[in-house]
Structures are given as C-alpha cells and as structure tokens.
C-alpha cells in the first residue's frame, strides 16, 4: 500500500531505521577500511567469510531451540567434542603423537559420519532430558555442557591434538579462485548450502511449521495434534548434528583441536540469533535474520582487531553490542503500544 509512491530515499531510510546496528557496523567497516590499508583485501574477506560460516552453522543449530522457547548451552562444548573426536580420528597414521594408536589411519569421510552420529546422540540426550524428564532447557543443557566437556577432556587427555592428515586440512581450507586474489572458501558454500536447507525446513516443511507453532504456544500446538515431544527432540538432534559439523570443520580450519575448542560459542550463537531478530519469547526467527546476526558479530570482531583494540576490550564491546542490538530490536515491538 502506497509503497510505490515512496521515493527510494524514504525506503532506504526505512530499512536503516529497521536495522540500525547493521548499518552502524557497515559504516564502521567503511571507516576502518579507509583508515587501514589491508582491511578491504580478499584475504580479509575470505577470513571473515570462513569465520562467519562456522559460526552460522552453530547459530542455525541453536536457532531451532530458541524459536521453541528453549536454549542450548551445550552448543560450544558439543563443537569442542566434535573437534576433538574428529581431530583424534583424522591424525596421520605415521604421526608420533597419535592418541588412538589402535586405529588405522581413518578415511576422513568415515570420521565425518562418526562425528555426525555423536552429534545426533548428544542432541537426542538433550531432547529427551528436556521433553521426557521435563528439565527446563537452560538447566538440561547446562548439565550436558559440563558432561560433554568432561568427556572431551578424558578422550583428549586434556592435550592439544595435531598431526592431521593433509587431505583433511586442505580440503576444508580449500578455496575456489586465486588464493592471493579473489577467492571463495569452500566453507562459504557449506554455509550457503545449510542456510538454504534450513530456510527450506523452516518455511516449507511440516517440521518447520510445528517448530514455530510450539514456540508460539506449546499447549495449543499439542492440542492441535502436533507431536511436541517428537518435534522438540528432532530440533535438539538437528542442533547436535549442526554442532558436530561445525566442530569437524573447525578442527581442520584451525589445524588442531583441544577440549577447550568452541568454549563460549553457544553464547555467541545465541547472541547472533538474538541480534538477528530471533525472539526469546518464542515463535519468531528467520534464517536470513540469523545470518545477519552472526555476520554482524564477526564483522565487529574483525573491525576491533584491525583497530588494534586490546583483545580484552573486545569482550566489553561485544557485550555492549548484544545489549544495544536487542534493546533496539525490542523497541520495534514496544513502540506499537
């Protein structure tokens, strides 16, 4: 209605007003880009894309939990667990520091499947604890978070894990194009694939509709014949599988793994989702929103890094951005009163 008459300028202003944080960061990026020579470089771009890609996968996983009014605090530790397992199993056969010497050199495809199964199981455990034991998701996943970290420490012997097969690291760090000039990391395509898949699930499938319905009103969903237990379990399993994929990729990306890998990622993922408009009161959230939220967060980190801000202050700034972004987002709803 009347949108056709709106000038481009007015429309643009509307978009800016709707997403102030995003535009502030874009402006900040442009400013930093002008001040620092190599900010606008393909290398930096590729770095941003790869970092965002992994975080995006984790955020996609946790988004389902958030949309159904839950949460998943075990996300980061699950990523660490997957990284440790993938790291150990992908060690070279002739590497001296191999942890599991009884294993032959593994095919990295098979390792991927093993990690997926592990993620599936963690998700299943979370889902069952939440739905069948009726433990609130916050507490349930706080518990599994600690359990998983412990297990990661046990199996990794609290040691850093290295000596990966070359194919594992080169494949996952692979890129299309000129490595010194314009190139796109494979991780971008992985993230894009999952982004599309999740968009499809959230918008076009019965599971997606059930998820939003549970978030909107769980009792009403149950009364309407939605199998809420099964749907929620599926959501936590999907989340577990996504963390597993992220962990598998992250170990190869970093060229090493340890039990502490992924620490705090659950909070970054939750923050990203929230910045991207996923409502913690349930029923609201979109895949593009999650992408924007994660991207904003990663962009912010790179900007701070280029500005040479003391890394300890990064946490302060990131925290401020979370609070600011969500308070601005919530204003949209409050203003309607």
């Amino acid at each position, binding site marked *: 209605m009347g949108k056709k008459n709106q000038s481009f300028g007015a429309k643009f202003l509307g978009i800016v007003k709707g997403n102030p944080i995003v535009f502030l960061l874009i402006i900040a990026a442009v400013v930093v880009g002008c001040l620092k020579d190599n900010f606008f470089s393909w290398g930096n771009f590729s770095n941003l894309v790869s970092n965002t890609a992994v975080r995006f996968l984790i955020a996609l996983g946790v988004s389902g939990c958030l949309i159904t009014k839950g949460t998943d605090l075990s996300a980061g530790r699950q990523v660490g667990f997957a990284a440790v397992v993938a790291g150990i199993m992908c060690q070279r056969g002739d590497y001296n520091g191999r942890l599991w010497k009884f294993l032959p050199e593994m095919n990295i495809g098979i390792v991927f499947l093993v990690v997926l199964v592990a993620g599936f199981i963690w998700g299943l455990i979370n889902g069952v604890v939440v739905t069948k034991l009726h433990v609130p998701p916050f507490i349930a996943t706080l518990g599994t978070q600690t359990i998983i970290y412990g297990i990661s420490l046990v199996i990794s012997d609290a040691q850093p894990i290295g000596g990966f097969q070359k194919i594992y690291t080169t494949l996952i760090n692979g890129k299309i194009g000129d490595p010194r000039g314009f190139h796109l990391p494979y991780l971008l395509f992985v993230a894009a694939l999952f982004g599309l898949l999740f968009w499809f699930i959230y918008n076009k499938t*019965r599971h997606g509709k059930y998820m939003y*319905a549970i978030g*909107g009103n769980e*009792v009403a969903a149950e*009364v309407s014949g939605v199998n809420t237990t099964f749907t929620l379990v599926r959501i936590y399993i999907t989340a577990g599988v996504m963390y597993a994929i992220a962990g598998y990729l992250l170990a190869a990306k970093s060229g090493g793994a340890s039990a502490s890998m992924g620490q705090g990622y659950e909070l970054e993922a939750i923050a990203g989702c929230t910045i991207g408009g996923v409502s913690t009161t349930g*029923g609201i959230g979109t895949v593009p929103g999650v992408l924007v939220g994660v991207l904003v967060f990663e962009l912010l980190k790179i900007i701070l890094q280029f500005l040479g801000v003391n890394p300890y202050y990064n946490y302060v700034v990131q925290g401020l951005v979370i609070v600011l972004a969500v308070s601005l987002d919530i204003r949209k709803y409050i203003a309607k009163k």
Partner: protein
Amino acid sequence: MSEYVLEMSGVSKAFPGVKALDNVQLKLRPGKVHALMGENGAGKSTLMKCMFGIYKMDEGEIRMDGQPVTISDPMDALKKGIAMVHQELQPIPARTVGENIFLGRYPMKKALGFIPIVDHKKMYDDTAVLLKKVRMSFDPHQKVGELSVSQMQSVEIAKAVSANCRVLILDEPTSSLTANEVEALFRIIEDLKRENVAIVYISHKMDEILRIADEVTIMRDGKYIGTWEANELTTDKIITQMVGRELHNLYPPRYNVPGDVVFEVKDFTSINPRSFRHVSFQLRKGEILGVGGLVGAQRTELMEGLFGIRSHTTGEILYNGKPLSIARPKDAIDQGVAMLTEDRRGSGIMAVLSVADNISIASLNRYLDHGFVINGKKVEQLVQDNVAKMNIKAPSSKTLIKSLSGGNQQKVLVGRWLANNPDVLILDEPTRGIDVGAKYEIYCIIADLAKEGKSIIMISSEMSELIGMSDRIMVMCDGRVTGFVNGSEATQENIMALATQFE
C-alpha cells in the same frame, strides 16, 4: 466541583493500520455503576487501558474532579485512585493473599531503627480487614494459587479497595463465576457504591447490565455511540445500538436430524479423584449435545480427558461401535475428533503466528507435496475458503492472529478444526468473550455443521445458549453426570436443579 469524578473526552488512539478509538467520551459519577458496552473490537479495552495509563492517548483529555490530569502509567493511575480488575487475572500464585494485595506497596517498618523491612504483621492485619470488607473469610496467609477463580477475583477487588480507589474498572468480572459467586460480587459492588466509588463495568451479559448498571455507554467500531440511563434501556435496544442493526433472532433455526449413535462414552473416570467420574453418554450423528453445569462441574476436564489432554483411569470410548484409544490429542484428531478448547489464548491461538499458520496447523498433512513440502497455494486456499465461509475479517492470510478481534480469532480456530473434516466436534465455551454479532455467526456455523451430519458436543455456561442451541443437554455437577434434558423441554429451572444436585 464537577458532578463527575472522572471524565474522558475527545479520546482518540490509533494503532498501525487501525483507528482503535475515535473521539470517544466517558463520564463517571461517584457511587454509580457505569456499564461500558460494545462488541469485541469496539474499543472498550483500549479506552480502559488509556484511562489506566497502559496506553497513551493520541488525542483527548482526562479530567478528575474537573481538573485535567495526565496518567502516565498504571502506578500513577493507582495513586490517583483508579484501579482495574483485569478480565484475565494475573496473580502471583506462589505468594500469599496478603503479598498479592500489597504487591509493590508493602507496608514498611524500620528494624533496629534504620533497616527498612516489610511489616508483615501490619500487612496481614490489613489484609484481614480488607477481606472482611469484600465479604471473604479465607486466611490472608493462604497462597493465591490455592484459591478458586472467584476467590482470586475477590483478592483483586480487595487490592483495588485497599488502594482507596475512587474509580474501579471491572473488565468482564463474571465471565468465570458461578451464579452464587456473581451474587457475592454484586453485594461487593453495592458496598462500594455506598462508599461513592465510581465503577466501570464491562460485560457482554445483558441481564447483569440491566440489573446493576445505573448508566450505560455504548461503543461501536471505536466510536462513541451514546450514554443512557440504564432504566431507559432494554436488551434489544442495547443490542441494536451495539451492532448498529436490528437483531431479530438470537439463535438460528436448526434443521439437523440426529441419527444413529456414533460416539459413546462408558464409565469414564479421571485419575484425579476430585474430577470427573463414572461418566457415560451417547452422541448421535448430526446431534448437538449441550453440556451444562456450574463452574467446577468438571465439564472441561471431562472433554479434555476424552480428547487426550488429561488422563483417565477407567472408561471406554466407542466410535461407530469400535473402541477408541486416545493417549494424546493427536490420537483423537487422527480418528476424526476435534476439540475447540475453552482458553483461546492459553491453548488456542499461537499469537505471534499468522492466520494461515494458525488455521493450517492441525491439518498440515493435507497440504504436503511429495510427502513433506508444504504447498503454500493449498494453505492459502484453505484460508480463503474459511474467510469466505465464516466471514472472517482479516486483512490478509499473513496477518498475525493476535491483531484480530476475539470473534475472528475464534472463527480461525473453528476453521483450524474443520480443515480436518472431523466427525465429532467438541466445542468448549465456543462463544466466550466474543460479541453478539460474531456469536450469532458462530451459532450459524454450529447449526450448519450439525445439518451436515457432524456430531457436536458444546459446553456452555450461558443458559440461554444451551437451551437455544442443543438437541439434548447433559448436565454435570461435581464431576458426575446428573441428568439429561431434551432441548425442547429444557428450562433454566430444570437445568439448574440438575446442576446443583450435590451429593
């Protein structure tokens, strides 16, 4: 001095896309009950929220004792002597009666002369006095969660009284009260009138209005229609003003013919010993079976038990002669039973989702391509069919359901169930909280469904609705079925006699 304790004039309030209030006025005299009437969506609640400081008016003025005032928030309203008892009570169930009443303004004292602490003794003593004032005799130390709905309401009224309010807003106070409790409420209102409190009384129940109101203001579509002395008005006159047209029939003619028994319940008993027990009844094809009883008769619990929301110990459900096993709602739905629940907001709508999502959620299996992809066109078709069939007023299928009026929300929910083409439809208070015009439309839908051969169970606390719509009425009291009355022979008296047959 003004003759009015509070005047609102020229009040306008717009929400994105709707003008909720358009130059509305309301003038309250001390010691009078002023009924505020209008269909749902007429703007009554919005007006009250403006008075109570929850919403800010776009235009308009509030005067108290002739002096212009601004009310910035509910705390400010309370300070100025305006109190509101909301339709949906919002107590803190885990805290005591006293704490609920004095929430936010606990009486304080100084421990050791300087540490401010809550003066519990004064709080509970004051609470006891207040409870006496509203003719209630329970313990101020009792947890509010343990009280009945009407007792909770009394607590809310006591809270309002304790603020020494001069204006008391009661929003649909009787919607979940039994006849005796309504009488008790009316006595409290009489007491307050004697203390010169001006009362705004919002209700859809004509008999109540005509009984206790002194003045009546009617609103329609956000506009002020007029104010009358209650004794000038009749039910017909009020309805005509509210809907802006003459309403001849309260209930549509019915042409359904009950056939064979399709649904039979035998000896159905809850796992909760205080709930329904040994219930048996039969339901015929194309029959409308009304279910009457007082609040607390366990009618809702029984139906929720049949639908798999609650558990039962013994009992059998036969459907076309075959036993049905129902452990959760999905089982009932899969076998052709549908249930419109009583609490529209609590277990009906998904507020933040669209009309399309809300209407299709129970029948998504019908719109799948290749077994898993939802066909948006089919869902849109479902929405459009229902919009046309039931006259649902919604700007688009993408509109969030929370922005529709109660009546339209209810129609969307009816549409949700009809999409599954059920044979047995349980309707729990299908017209609660919706306005006269939408009520009639819902009645027509029910009558049509019965004519199509669907079997309907309708719980209702409105006597006239039960009598006007049912082929047969099953009456319950305290968890037991106390009798059946044929629709043609039903009177308020014989239903009430069965409904009060306590053991």
